[in-house]
């Protein structure tokens, strides 16, 4: 058995070909919202500890970064946003992509604007204000939400899958 054959065999045994096999995109109607809720929950759990190494922080960390990973998976398995060599995006998919990203861009811009307004309260001592690590986690949070929102909006823009016996 040649080296390429051995490598092929290795991939088949471990079922790694699942990663590159062509998959039908799925519409996630509510899952992205659940993941956003998990991101918020994890972030709040981490932020309320003030950086102290306590169980709440680790639970929050796990929930937050678990949701971050879930966001990447939902993006990969949800409506198609990225063309491949064998499957370019057609006009309908490009339209869905454009509308989903445009809408989520507006929502994110509004959320960031509200955050900026909130930052003007930094002189108010009784309110929560992010520390260095809170900003770090917030960056990942915004990144995750910016992948989840288009997935969620595109899922609702996609009609019910058309299936019949011939295809």
């Amino acid at each position, binding site marked *: 058995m040649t080296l390429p054959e051995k490598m092929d065999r290795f991939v088949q045994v471990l079922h790694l070909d699942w990663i590159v096999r062509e998959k*039908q995109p799925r519409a996630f109607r509510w899952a992205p919202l659940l993941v956003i809720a998990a991101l918020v929950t994890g972030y709040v759990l981490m932020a309320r500890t003030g950086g102290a190494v306590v169980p709440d922080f680790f639970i929050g960390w796990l929930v937050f970064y678990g949701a971050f990973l879930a966001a990447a998976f939902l993006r990969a398995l949800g409506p198609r946003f990225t063309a491949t060599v064998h*499957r370019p995006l*057609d*006009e*309908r*998919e490009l339209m869905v992509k454009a509308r989903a990203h445009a809408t989520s861009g507006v929502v994110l811009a509004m959320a960031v604007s509200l955050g900026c307004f909130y930052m003007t309260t930094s002189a108010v001592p009784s309110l929560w204000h992010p520390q260095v690590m809170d900003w770090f986690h917030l960056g990942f949070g915004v990144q995750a939400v910016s992948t989840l929102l288009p997935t969620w909006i595109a899922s609702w823009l996609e*009609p*019910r*899958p*058309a*299936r*019949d016996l*011939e*295809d």
Partner: protein
Amino acid sequence: MDNLYNRIAVFRAERGVSRRELADAVGVNNQTIGYLERGDYKPSLELAMKIAAYFGVPIELLFSFRPFESVADTLRRAHAAGEGPQ
């Protein structure tokens, strides 16, 4: 916005063409052909013309803002006029 009706499924069935074959011929995903047939998606002029060209018919035979007459009604009318198969 007006509904856009089409007879893609009828033409496809008549020619024995699968969704995938039609999709490959006009350069779209086969799911898009399914959405078109169900009326869930309105095609661009370019796509509509490609589909009409694929079947070799004028675009107005495939797409209309008014519902198409059913095949049964068309045959019945043709038969009554003495045009259809005996």
